[in-house]
């Protein structure tokens, strides 16, 4: 019940990161007329080409995963099951009233945020082993090549500049690394003999992680730098804007207590020796960890942040409507280039709504709706359901929830 309530409320507040369409496409310049823009934002999303919300809820919050539920996920994916998710909470500001080195066209901006990002590529064979077992894969090798799981949590504190007329700008942030985990299997497979009397596991891959002795928010296990920026190029005659947006372009240097496990080996098992069981001095069942060969190193490591690049075109059709074309790139196999197309219309000068279709990223085609509202030229609210079906159906393959509150502080002359 609580989950449904949070979904309901968040749907009313869900907001795409690239909202504020009306900031650029609106007919007024309310932002530029104010002294300071304060911005409080929270966002959480997940997307998959195979894992639906019911499955995710049970994995995240507990519960019994029935065979039918596990089967339903597997039927959606033929080769590679992809999953991505992130959450972010941030507080930022833009100083419109000030200038930069005397240039009134420029202002200062800053932001502090807490971030976590996770993505995974699970071969269908591995998924089958994890959730259905190997009993129906006798005399077969189940491949687990190209398995990839990556998780990173970090905090950022940044300052930058903003070009007031176009709202273009950049922020350079100091990054505090909280935690990272990365599993990569280049090649691997599990073979079960026809009788089930032997199993062989081949594995070639790495697992890296940050220091496990220290955990928690702000643990300070690494330090890095990140660049966020947005370049808005207005089209002629106020027809629209082309934007290039950079998110989290940077890296973290993790401390000397970071660990890396590397393995390239073959493990075969034909059963515990009977003497170990039928014996007063028996050792019982073996610990398989002792049988898996791997190397272990402790050293500093550098990891790229989960950055992405976004290119967007918003073009007016008439005075009251415009279309949007958006592409997002992230240089990993698990993330396909994401394309979004949308149509938006102004209901009045303060209120805009529209619909969009998105394909790619971590998942498949989904349809969303958007609504933005200015209130008394002081408060801005934006709602965007990135996946309407996914928001309300247990079989939805993604969710997108965000809250954005933007408050404008007036110029002193206007008070």
């Amino acid at each position, binding site marked *: 019940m609580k989950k449904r309530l*949070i979904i309901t409320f968040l749907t*009313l507040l869900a907001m795409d990161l690239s909202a504020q369409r009306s900031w650029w496409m609106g007919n007024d310049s309310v932002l530029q007329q104010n002294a300071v823009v304060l911005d409080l934002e929270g966002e959480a999303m997940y997307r998959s080409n195979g894992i639906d919300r019911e499955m995710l809820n049970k*994995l995240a919050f*507990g519960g019994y995963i029935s065979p039918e539920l596990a089967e339903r996920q597997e039927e959606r994916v033929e080769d590679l099951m992809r999953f991505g998710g992130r959450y972010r909470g941030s507080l930022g500001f833009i100083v419109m009233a000030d200038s930069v080195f005397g240039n009134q066209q420029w202002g200062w901006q800053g932001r502090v945020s807490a971030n976590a990002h996770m993505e995974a590529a699970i071969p269908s064979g591995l998924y089958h082993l994890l959730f259905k077992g190997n009993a129906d894969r006798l005399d077969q090798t189940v491949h687990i090549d190209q398995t990839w799981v990556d998780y990173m949590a970090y905090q950022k504190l940044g300052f930058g500049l903003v070009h007031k007329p176009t709202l273009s700008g950049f922020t350079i942030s100091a990054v505090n690394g909280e935690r990272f985990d990365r599993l990569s299997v280049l090649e691997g497979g599990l073979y079960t003999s026809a009788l*089930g009397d032997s*199993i062989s596991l081949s594995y070639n891959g790495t697992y890296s992680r940050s220091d496990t002795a220290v955990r928690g928010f702000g643990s300070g296990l690494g330090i890095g730098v990140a660049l966020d920026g947005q370049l808005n190029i207005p089209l002629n005659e106020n027809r629209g804007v082309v934007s290039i947006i950079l998110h989290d372009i940077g890296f973290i240097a993790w401390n000397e207590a970071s660990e890396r496990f590397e393995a390239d080996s073959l493990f075969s098992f034909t*059963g515990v020796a009977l003497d170990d069981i*039928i014996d007063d001095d028996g050792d019982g069942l073996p610990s398989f960890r002792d049988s898996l060969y791997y190397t272990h190193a402790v050293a500093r490591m550098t990891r790229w942040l989960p950055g992405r690049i976004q290119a967007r075109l918003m073009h007016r059709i008439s005075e009251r409507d415009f279309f949007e074309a958006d592409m997002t790139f992230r240089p990993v196999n698990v993330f396909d280039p994401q394309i979004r197309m949308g149509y938006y219309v102004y209901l009045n000068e303060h209120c805009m709504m529209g619909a969009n279709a998105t394909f790619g990223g971590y998942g498949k085609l989904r349809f969303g709706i958007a609504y933005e509202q200015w209130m008394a030229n002081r408060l801005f609210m934006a709602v965007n359901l990135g996946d309407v079906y996914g928001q309300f159906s247990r079989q939805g393959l993604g969710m997108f929830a965000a809250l954005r509150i933007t408050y404008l502080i007036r110029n002193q002359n206007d008070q």
Partner: protein
Amino acid sequence: MNLKAFKSIYFFALLVILVSACRREEPTVWDIQVASPLAEGRITWSDLIADSLRETDENGVMHLIYQSDFFDVDMDTLIRLDDTTIVNSFTPGFNGGPLNVPAGFSLIELEENITLGISNAEIREVRINAGTLRYTLTSYVEGPLSVAYHLPGVLFPDGTNLQLLAETEAGSIEIPYTLQGEEDLSGVSIDLQGVNGSSFNRIASMLNVAISSSAGGTVPVYGNDSVTVELTFEDVVISYGRGYFGNQETTVETLVDFSPFIASVGSIELEELSLSAAITNTLGADLRITIDEFSGLANGTSTTLSHELIGQPINLTRALDNGNGSLEVSSFEVVIDESNSNIATLVGSIPSEIAVNASVDLNPLGDISGGNDFIYTDQAFEASLALDIPLCLSSAGLWLQDSLSIAPFQSELNVEPTLTFIITNGFPLAVEALDATFHSILGESFQLVTNMNIASGNYFSIDALTPSEQQHVQVLSHNNLELMRQGGYIELTMALSSYNGEIVKMNGNEYIDLQLLLNGAIELSYE
């Protein structure tokens, strides 16, 4: 409700839900179907019978060799000195008194034998490995004495005799003077022929009690004043004895453990075997041994050995002592096989015990050595048997019973497995009606395998045997698996039959391979 109020309530509610809803309330649980090997092993002869009990002959046939003593003669009954205390009290030899006796005057002079009981034998000499002689000298004379107590028959390794020399102080009837001491008897030899050298079990002693020169004057002595000498032999271990051990007839009843095999019912037909019995007489005395009965006991049924040896006396002449423990012994050996007895039938009944009843007659002709029987206690009398069973046998329905202990094991898997037993039988013996019952240390039990049959390997000759393979499927419930995790033992009963009931020969390379496979649902979970 105006927009402002609505938004306030909206955001407040959102905050509450965000804080309270995102919480993991229970573990994530799911089931998978697993096919995996569980255990494997090979059972060979080494697992069934110790290597020391097996040999292979020139024809490649494996033999079971079982050796054991089948009766013993208790040496302790022939010569043993228990802890013994001898108290002798000596008086001046007159009545009344007091007589004032001057210093230096000899009050008591006495030479006599001390009787030392060493079993029922007539012992003339013993040598002692270890032991202690404690002595206590008590004087009731009211004056100092010089006491010399000499045991000339007790000879120490350095060649000296035992002498107790003491200068006592004045004592009284009420408060006697007491002197105590001890001597180590290790390496001591004792002549037990007494003062005249022709007795037995007698130690010669010489006592001289005189008024001590330190008395200074006379000492009043009464007729009932006495000097008491107490000798205590403790923890005496005799290494050698000589004398006449007497004519004794002893009955010996022995049970020989024969439990490499524990059989319930049935028998095997053995093609050939032999039983060797050897008796060695290391005593310096004649023995006549009669084996009255030799039988095998199997499940309450007795099979008696029939052989010409049974009931017939075996005469063993005495050993000869060449000195320093070097002996010329006399021996008796006999080989009992299927040509002269029913030993194959007796052993074929798979007895759990062999009962031997014998009578032992010591010195049946009396004292023909003139009292010179001897014994070295560290050279034991030997009576052993060795059973040689070549594994050429046939069997039809031989029931065996055994148990296998299962150590406790840890496993976090939640599983209800189907167990598949894959058995490769490389023995030319078929197993029928195999039952396995698991008994946990908690006292509960369940049936693990019921009425399982394992076909014999295909036997063509001793060097040509094709193993047979079969499978048995058993479902193990979660509760039963939990019991097994606690540890316990598996009780096995089975019937063995040789290939087609024929005679089969084994070369020691036979084996049984066992694989245990798991196929079932496993519950996985994480918190």
